[in-house]
């Protein structure tokens, strides 16, 4: 036991945390603050104070990323810094991956609840490392460094930094491992571990860490990057106290968080409509024929239902009640992951601005039901790729918020969703020749940062330029990726037609790529995105979901001969039923409906294809303007057969002019035909209800949705009640996987 407690006025950190939690519970205001007295007395000083801390954090991030080595951090800025109160509530956050508004907060609270103050002790200059999803992280790949900040003998805050790693030593190389099925596959775990003192990371930690991952140089330099940023933040805080005084600082951090809470309530009242919002989204995982491990050999469909209540006082209440169970797969989500996914989106669609902090966290109620994928309550499961559920699940939040924005008149802000940042092709190998023969390379492209965004209610979605987990989405330079993953140079990259979500306003489009294995041995390759199910909750107001992914690769090819003879090779896969792989190369060509594959081995001259995602559409496609369709055809976004079958547009290619010409008369006739077809091929709701109900009662559902229904019915009384009432099923109706 320490002689003197580290908290304020002789309290322990645990006592401070309990007091903070009691005050927010009782007074419904952060730390019981009912008046922003500093802001009211001298608003200029208050704003300057906030701006100085915010500026320090942004500066720390911008400086620290130059210390980092991994292209994910350095090239596309996958890092973020935050300043926390002694209890772990974020006061100010840098730019970057705002996933981490609240994640490191949970890590600080974990250390306080576990009484780190006594053992292992918290001293000036100490350094703590965390990547455990069970205490405030998203997945092991996000690695956090936290340092305490002291003023005299009191702990007055924490500085935290997080970066995304290329590899954390999991079951296979990579950062989102499809083959992780339990904690022990997730890679190296640091559960709020003290790794240094006196501002220096201990040598034994570096020795151990270097041997725990496949990319030791990236790991070590990224650790130094985070520590450098944390130290810059600590210096800035101490300067702040020298300038403003410790009493001002102590009051200021409380008011800044309470103001953050109030900003959310005001923004909600400004933009939305009170009421109940719902969206249903899903994620498929075709593991049955892929998994090596017997416990993982099951196809899964995850139920990701979201209900948002917008209350009269502007408070948001989110619930995932109805979610199905966790599984022996890597998509399980801890609280840190659920918070991370939520915050990175809310700060983009509703609560953007500089005063984003844990005040926002306190303004939003949430329910992550225990025993579901959203809160398994079991630290021994795998949490390696929670994004597999988070990314589709939070399309529901975007869609729900969009209904409110639409009704309020802010149609330009409507976005029903986004493409899945999947198909992060991953793996690695060893150079078998050349100047760095024998060295390992890791396949970790983050081109996935450029997906299609959903259409709004007034325009098309953004093409190839959005990632839900990084508001500054940037897919980086292909040359940089090739430099770092030299064993798989690109053969081609081009726009992939017919993949955006159809609608009056189409979703963003995207492209596909082909890479070849070269100069390497022992190459592992895997990838995943949605394949059997459309991603997320689809389009809005008549718009359609974007196309799904699939898997295509070829082994034992004759590419060496093709290169030697300078013959044509595949540049894409624009029409899978008439593929360029089949047309140009010989070899074992594999096409799979499901995109998810466990690691396979590849050798030189094997090639693989990957495709990025479009975004969902908005509105009835038959209302799309003809000039927009013409542009889609000219730009290669759609092919003429698909604009005919989806948009009812007849167009002909004019070779002389090198452009598409829409036949307006024929289009008018075709669209009239399609309206008639709608009547002929649709049924009344009552007929639909009978037709669909049979699918539940006749016992012929496929395993994956059947397992999903079975679990949701068992885990949620409310969801089960609504389900049974909707289909007029007996009160004790259950489903069962045979």
């Amino acid at each position, binding site marked *: 036991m320490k002689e003197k407690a580290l908290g304020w006025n002789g309290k322990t950190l645990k006592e401070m945390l309990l007091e903070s939690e009691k005050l927010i519970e009782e007074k419904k205001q952060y730390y019981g603050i009912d008046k922003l007295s500093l802001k009211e007395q001298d608003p200029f000083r208050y704003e300057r104070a906030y701006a100085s801390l915010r500026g320090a954090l942004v500066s720390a991030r911008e400086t620290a990323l130059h210390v980092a080595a991994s292209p994910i951090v350095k090239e596309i800025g996958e890092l973020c810094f935050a300043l926390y109160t002694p209890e772990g509530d974020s006061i100010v956050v840098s730019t970057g991956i705002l996933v981490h508004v609240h994640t490191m907060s949970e890590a600080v609270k974990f250390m306080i609840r576990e009484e780190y103050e006594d053992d292992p002790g918290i001293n000036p200059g100490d350094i703590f490392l965390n990547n455990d999803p069970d205490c405030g992280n998203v997945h092991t790949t996000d690695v956090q460094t936290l340092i305490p900040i002291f003023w005299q003998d009191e702990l007055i805050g924490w500085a935290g930094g997080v970066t995304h790693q290329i590899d954390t030593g999991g079951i296979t190389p990579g950062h989102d491992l499809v083959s992780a099925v339990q904690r022990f596959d997730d890679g190296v775990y640091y559960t709020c571990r003290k790794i240094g003192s006196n501002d220096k990371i201990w040598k034994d930690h570096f020795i151990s860490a270097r041997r725990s991952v496949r990319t030791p140089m990236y790991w070590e330099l990224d650790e130094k990057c985070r520590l450098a940023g944390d130290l810059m933040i600590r210096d800035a805080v101490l300067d702040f106290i020298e300038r403003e005084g410790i009493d001002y600082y102590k009051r200021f951090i409380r008011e800044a968080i309470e103001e953050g809470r109030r900003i959310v309530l005001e923004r909600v009242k400004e933009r939305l*409509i*009170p*009421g*109940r*919002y*719902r*969206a249903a989204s*899903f994620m*498929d995982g075709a593991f049955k024929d892929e998994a090596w491990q017997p416990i993982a050999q099951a196809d899964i469909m995850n139920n990701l239902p979201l209900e948002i209540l*917008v209350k*009269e006082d502007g408070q948001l209440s989110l619930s995932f009640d109805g979610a199905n169970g966790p599984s022996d797969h890597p998509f399980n989500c801890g609280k840190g992951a659920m918070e991370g996914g939520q915050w990175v989106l809310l700060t983009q669609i509703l609560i953007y601005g500089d005063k984003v902090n844990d005040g926002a966290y306190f303004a939003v109620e949430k329910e992550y039901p225990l025993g579901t994928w959203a809160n398994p309550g079991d630290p021994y499961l795998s949490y390696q790729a929670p994004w597999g559920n988070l990314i589709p699940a939070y399309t529901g939040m975007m*869609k*729900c918020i969009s209904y*409110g924005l639409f*009704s309020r*008149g802010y149609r330009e*802000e409507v976005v029903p969703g986004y493409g899945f940042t999947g198909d992060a092709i991953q793996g690695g190998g060893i150079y078998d020749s050349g100047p760095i023969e024998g060295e390992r390379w890791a396949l970790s492209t983050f081109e996935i940062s450029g997906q299609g965004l959903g259409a709004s209610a*007034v*325009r098309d979605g953004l093409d190839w330029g959005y990632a839900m987990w990084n508001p500054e989405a940037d897919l980086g330079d292909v040359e940089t990726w090739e430099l770092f993953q030299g064993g798989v140079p690109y053969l081609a990259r081009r726009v992939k037609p*017919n993949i955006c979500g*159809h609608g009056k*306003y189409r979703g963003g489009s995207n492209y596909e790529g082909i890479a070849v294995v070269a100069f390497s041995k022992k190459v592992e390759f895997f990838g995943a995105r949605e394949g*059997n*199910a*459309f991603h997320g909750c*689809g389009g809005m*107001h*008549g718009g*359609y*979901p974007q*196309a*799904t*992914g*699939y898997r295509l690769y070829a082994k034992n090819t004759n590419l060496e001969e093709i290169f030697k003879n300078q013959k044509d090779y595949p540049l894409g896969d624009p*029409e*899978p*039923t008439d593929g360029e792989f089949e047309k140009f190369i010989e070899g074992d060509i594999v096409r799979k*409906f499901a995109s998810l594959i466990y690691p396979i081995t590849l050798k030189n001259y094997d090639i693989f294809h990957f495709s990025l995602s479009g975004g969902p559409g908005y509105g*009835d496609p*038959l209302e799309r303007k003809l000039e927009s369709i013409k542009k889609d055809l000219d730009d290669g976004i759609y092919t003429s057969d698909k604009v005919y*079958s*989806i948009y009812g547009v007849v167009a002909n290619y004019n070779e002389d002019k090198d452009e598409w010409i829409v036949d307006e008369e024929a289009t008018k006739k075709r669209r009239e035909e399609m309206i008639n077809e*709608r*009547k002929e091929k*649709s*049924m*009344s*709701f009552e007929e*639909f209800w009978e*037709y*669909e*109900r049979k*699918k539940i009662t006749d016992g012929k*559902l*496929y395993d*994956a*949705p059947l397992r*999903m*229904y079975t679990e949701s019915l068992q885990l949620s009384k409310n969801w089960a009640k609504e389900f049974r009432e909707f*289909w007029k099923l007996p009160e004790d109706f259950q489903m069962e996987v045979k």
Partner: protein
Amino acid sequence: MVEHDKKTLARMLDGDLSWEELKPIVSGRKDPNRFDVIMEILQEKVPWDEKIILPLHEHLYIVLKNGERIVKCDCGFEFGDYRVNWKTKCRVRVRDTMEQIEELYLKYMGCHPDWMELREYFCPGCLTLLDTESVPPGYPTVFNFLPDIDAFYENWLGRKAPDK
């Protein structure tokens, strides 16, 4: 205070603004009178006389009809009480075979019907496609948005709803 003129907002609703015109509306501070201006534009636009209480959808409105709040399509079709999911009055097409799905998506690039189906909800009056649902077979129809109209008008706008 930022205010966008009615003509500009009307053009925005029609999708006629260039990106240069739209960008300041997206990025700038929001105009606090937006709801009222949009309501005015919409009321002038619909071919019927019922008072709009809340725009619900590109084609659907909650309107006042004989003292009741009902959902009405701009074509004139009436869906009934706004507290009941309007989709339950739609005509529905279910695409649950590969052939039907591949009319809209290339092979390999749509959902697999064993896992998911695509539903299309049409207005019975004008057959406009009002919504799609991509859900596993047998999933209940989703009731997306139930607004609290009185709380909105009285507590947020500080006035009674138009029918009160």
